[in-house]
């Protein structure tokens, strides 16, 4: 009797445990089963995003100014703002974004496999990534390039003068390769000191272990600005030895989504050119007399419909994150990055929006 009861307890226990086990495995959720099954995302990202109601955006897990969670765990940064801008245009709400942290190793897989819709993670637009890897780079949101930083008292003022110097550099990415190429092309002997982690490589430079520190100019500026009052003791050389056009990436073969991403960026650039900011955009949408502004903000014409969006899409973008300059100043200004080549074309920079008509 007792044995039989024990047996049945065991059997029921097993059944309930299987049930509870299914229920109790928190990481064991299949995301695919929550979202309505998306019809082949490669061809129809826009529909998939609409059906889901959120944009899934791959961002940097930690790069100051571009994408990093703040002390409250909320993602902030220049690339992050761009995700919010796209969400505002497509879904009308900048908060309808799910941010997925990606590393340099898994970012392309995340995009290829459809884990993210949009990769906004300071990714350099290169030939092979655009063609062989099967991505599209709809726009360049930030023109960067590799530069050098030296101590101000070293007396060096040009890249050609660093012959014989020890140069701190991080391995893996193109930075190390660019340095070697540049040194060979200019017949300059340098001694690279390769250190993996950013914090250690900057530590080595500030401790005087190497004479020169090389990485992208934006990174140099941020590192220098973080020194506070001691920033004056370091100088960024004018030489830029590589082209690093950074921008959002999408999967190839979905021109509709690529168009939206591209024109969200151009809307932000054009808004800066027209002097439209997050403060005055509502008013401009009602009263601005300039025909192109009226078309951009959807008062006349139907540019939004051509993109498959409501006509006031640009108003929502600018209200959410501001124009290009506002987003730049808010995120990159505090860490000491100058506009440089990212000024508007009217001010001698490279940021140029095609006409809205």
């Amino acid at each position, binding site marked *: 009797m007792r044995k039989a*009861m024990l047996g*049945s*307890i065991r059997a*029921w*226990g097993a*059944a*309930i*445990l299987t*049930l*509870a*086990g*299914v*229920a*109790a*495995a*928190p*990481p*064991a*959720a*299949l*995301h*695919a*089963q929550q979202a309505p099954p998306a*019809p*082949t*995302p*490669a061809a129809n990202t826009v529909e*998939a995003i609409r059906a889901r109601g959120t944009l899934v955006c791959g961002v940097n*897990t*930690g*790069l*100051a100014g571009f994408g*990093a*969670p*703040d002390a*409250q*765990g*909320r*993602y902030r940064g220049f690339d992050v703002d761009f995700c919010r801008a796209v969400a505002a245009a497509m879904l009308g709400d900048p908060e309808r974004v*799910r*941010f*997925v*942290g990606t*590393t340099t*190793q*898994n970012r392309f*897989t*995340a995009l*290829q*496999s459809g*884990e993210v819709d949009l990769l906004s993670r300071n990714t350099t637009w290169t030939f092979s990534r655009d063609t062989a890897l099967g991505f599209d780079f709809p726009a360049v949101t930030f023109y960067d390039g590799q530069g050098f930083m030296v101590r101000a008292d070293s007396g060096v003022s040009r890249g050609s003068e660093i012959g014989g110097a020890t140069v701190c550099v991080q391995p893996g990415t193109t930075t190390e390769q660019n340095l070697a190429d540049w040194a060979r092309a200019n017949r300059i002997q340098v001694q690279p000191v390769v250190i993996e982690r950013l*914090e250690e490589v*900057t530590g080595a430079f500030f401790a005087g272990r190497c004479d020169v520190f090389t990485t992208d100019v934006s990174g140099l500026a*941020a*590192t220098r*600005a*973080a020194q*506070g009052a*001691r920033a004056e003791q370091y100088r960024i050389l004018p030489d830029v030895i590589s082209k690093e056009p950074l921008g959002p990436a999408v999967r190839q073969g979905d021109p509709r989504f690529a168009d939206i991403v591209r024109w969200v960026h151009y809307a932000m650039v054009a808004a800066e050119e027209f002097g439209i900011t997050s403060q005055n955009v509502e008013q401009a949408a009602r009263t601005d007399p300039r025909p192109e502004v009226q078309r951009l903000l959807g008062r006349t014409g139907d540019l939004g419909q051509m993109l498959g969006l409501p006509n006031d899409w640009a108003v929502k973008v600018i209200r959410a994150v501001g124009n290009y300059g506002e987003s730049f100043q808010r995120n990159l200004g505090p860490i*000491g990055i100058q506009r440089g080549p990212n000024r508007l074309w009217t001010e001698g920079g490279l940021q140029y929006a095609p006409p809205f008509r």
Partner: protein
Amino acid sequence: MAPADTTTRVPLDGPVAGVPEAVARRPPVAAVGPIAWARANLFSSWISTAVTLLLAYLIARAAIAFAEWAVVNAIWQVPGNQTQACREVKGIGACWAVVTEKHRFILFGTYPYEEHWRPALVILIFVALYAVSAMRRFWRQELVLVWAGALTLIGILMWGGDSAPRLLPQPWEQLLALALLAGAGFAHVRGWINVAWPAAALVFALLAWAGPVLGLSYVPQERWGGLPITLILATFGLAFAFPLAILVALGRRSGLPAIKTLCVLYVELIRGVPLISLLFMASVMFPLFLPEGMNIDKLLRAQIAIILFAGAYLAEVVRGGLQALPRGQYEAADALGLTYWQKTGLIILPQALRLVIPPLVNTFIGFFKDTSLVLIIGIFDLLTAGKTAIVEPAWQGFGVEVYIFVGVIYFLFCFAMSKYSQNLEAELNRHRRR
């Protein structure tokens, strides 16, 4: 145990030998006690005296320097991200302000700020779960129920919202759950089973559907982070890897060639590659094999990789225990006419596992820390969150303080595991003490 104790105690304390009770005298201080110990071990010759004094001086200096850095000159708080004060004392004093400012991010990652009480509660539940499981008086069947309940609760707290569709995504699964619940109730009414089981099942079911009622908002998995991620990966990893390891270890000693080959292949393949490459496979290669549009949760993929990896290592540890058992134990069990599973469950495993407690705990501790490798696939575990906390330019350069904070947390968990295993070992191996 009890008889052994009494036999040793009787002749000493009891009046059996008829020895008159002596007045208890204190032992001579010069022969025992701390002073004698110090004299014998630290100051036995002039060389030891010199070495002792030198080392004492060095230790004292290091300790004072550390205390000055960590306490006396330390800065505990700065007004709103103004780290100038910290930069001025750099090298002289610690900037604990970075921990004060960022501790919630380090502990909970990108989890919504207002909802931080949920992961905090999850950490407490984990700790309570470990504490309950550690006590031998709770080692009974119902402990499995406690685990299932606690883990369900953790899932509900972390996800929130309407958890039921997430825990049991398919309608048929929810129906099955309801059917099981009804079945359990029926079984109890008929007097077949104890009331605890249907009651527990009812509680789980209510909890799983109660998310919206409790007012918990939904938090998607990619926003989880910090210590709960580390605990989830380690706990689930080891909880699932351990049974797997036992099966594989038994399989490797099996007489059936197919099973044996399979187990050998599994162990050798998994052990032949580093954990980091398995995580890469799970994170970078695996999604490419899936049909487009189907995504298995990133955390789940990492979790499975960790389970497989830990399983292979633990299997070899368990196999070591199986091999250490004398042949006589197997033969005696066979002679009693026990079946294979009875023999294994009642005779072999209890002895074999007891033998391998030290290497098992060693592997457990190793894996607890190895979970931090998930940083390469962009999951914010405790260590990654700590690293991310210091990318903000204002806080760059205060890595030491953050690493000390994270290190202390890891140490607490690992040290507790290690101490516990020592006690367990002493208790289970009492019969071997000579």
